């Protein structure tokens, strides 16, 4: 579950005030709005990368408002994927599980599982340099999911992809949500791309949030 209650965020350029919304367990909600509306700012606050000045954030039944990013049990996919330049795809997938103290067989099993689900089997020993846009996004999604987070936070994961790569990424996400659903907040300013995937759609406009679909 994601529950945001009366959150206010002040950045250098704008403010978001009294934002409240909720995403149910294993549901996928879309957060839309024009460029510069504050979608990424709000998402970064959920990640713990930006402080909130008021309100509370609950992720998976835990109040995480004052917790560090590492304690929030989230999977975060930033807009630019932000892969680790010196790590292979396999190392990306092992990163979270290793930090959480999983043993070797558990890590190997998880890597195999995600590589199969997101079609990364042939890329496991590659470095990010030279991967296509779609491959980079799939690696970023797999990396975010590897540690079995309670919540998945996606920041425009389809931006910059060509049509085929967008469709491929969406198909993999749909397949993943069918087999092992994760509570997801998907930030996008091209809502039409998501089709029927979101269970709810929230729109951020002029610092206010309104429900467009539930």
């Amino acid at each position, binding site marked *: 579950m994601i529950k945001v209650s009366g959150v206010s965020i002040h950045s250098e350029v704008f403010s978001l005030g009294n934002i409240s919304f909720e995403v149910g367990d294993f549901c996928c909600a879309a957060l839309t709005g024009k460029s510069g509306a504050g979608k990424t700012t709000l998402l970064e606050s959920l990640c713990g*990368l930006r402080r909130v000045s008021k309100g509370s954030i609950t992720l998976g039944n835990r109040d995480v408002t004052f917790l560090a990013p*590492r304690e929030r049990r989230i999977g975060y996919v930033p807009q*630019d994927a932000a892969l*680790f*330049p010196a*790590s292979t795809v396999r190392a990306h997938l092992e*990163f979270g599980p290793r930090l959480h103290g999983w043993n070797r067989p558990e890590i190997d099993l998880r890597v195999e599982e995600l590589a199969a689900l997101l079609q990364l089997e042939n890329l496991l020993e590659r470095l990010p340099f030279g991967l296509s846009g779609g491959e980079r996004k799939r690696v970023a999604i797999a990396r975010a999911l590897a540690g079995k987070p309670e919540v998945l936070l996606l920041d425009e994961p389809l931006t910059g992809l060509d049509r085929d790569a967008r469709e491929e990424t969406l198909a993999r996400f749909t397949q993943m949500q069918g087999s092992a659903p994760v509570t997801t907040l998907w930030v996008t300013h091209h809502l039409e791309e998501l089709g029927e995937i979101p269970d709810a759609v929230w729109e951020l406009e002029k610092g206010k949030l309104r429900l467009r679909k539930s």
Partner: protein
Amino acid sequence: MGLGWIFLLLIIGLVTANIYYVASEVPWGDRGLDLLSPELVRATALTLVTSTVSALLSTLIAVPTSYGLSRFSGRVSRLLETIFDIPILLPPLVVGFCLLLLFNHLPFAGKSIDAWLGVPVTYSVAAIILAQVTICTSLAIRSMKASFAALDPRAEQVAQTLGAKPVEAFWKVALPSVKQGVFGAASVSWARAVGEFGPILVFAGAFRGKTEVLSTSIYIEMGAGQLENAALVSLLQMTLAISVLITVSVLSSAGKDRF
């Protein structure tokens, strides 16, 4: 670009002049063995040891410092950057002179630093290293800061959302991503340390068999009118510097191919 060609000719001229002088004026045979004199062997060994220690220390200091500078902006950060640049902007002799004053004339708990330490640093091997580190660390910080600044901090933020502490994000994500930069900074520091002269002459002295390094050897040999020996030492230093530059260049292109 025309002036660039003239500068290129000047550099080639410098190297050629040294090689030509050694080839034409140094009497090879018995006197050529002067190159293997115990003093020169010791000066070469001391140069290599002190430069390596200094390059390692400079890199160790520069990596976390430059990382901090690249991740924090603001007045304090800018002020610190300016302060860290001071040793490379000052004339090298001034750096050596200030080190001399710091260790001998600045009272520390009623004594000079040298007296307080109990072991005199001035005119010792430690003074050579300290003089080299003072200059090389500034250089390494500049070099490393550019590497860290080019690295998107978002990757470290993602690492933290995956469960990494900030220090783990630095070790596991940021540092491996700039390893070419670390190697480059260490190499440049080493090359600079090998060639450092002014601060070493003033702070460590140029005592034959004690604090003599290759750069001060040239000074000693020239002072004694032994231009042939000075030319040989100069050529040796040139070879070391060019070898480092070629190694860094080759490894950097290998790194670019990889990332």
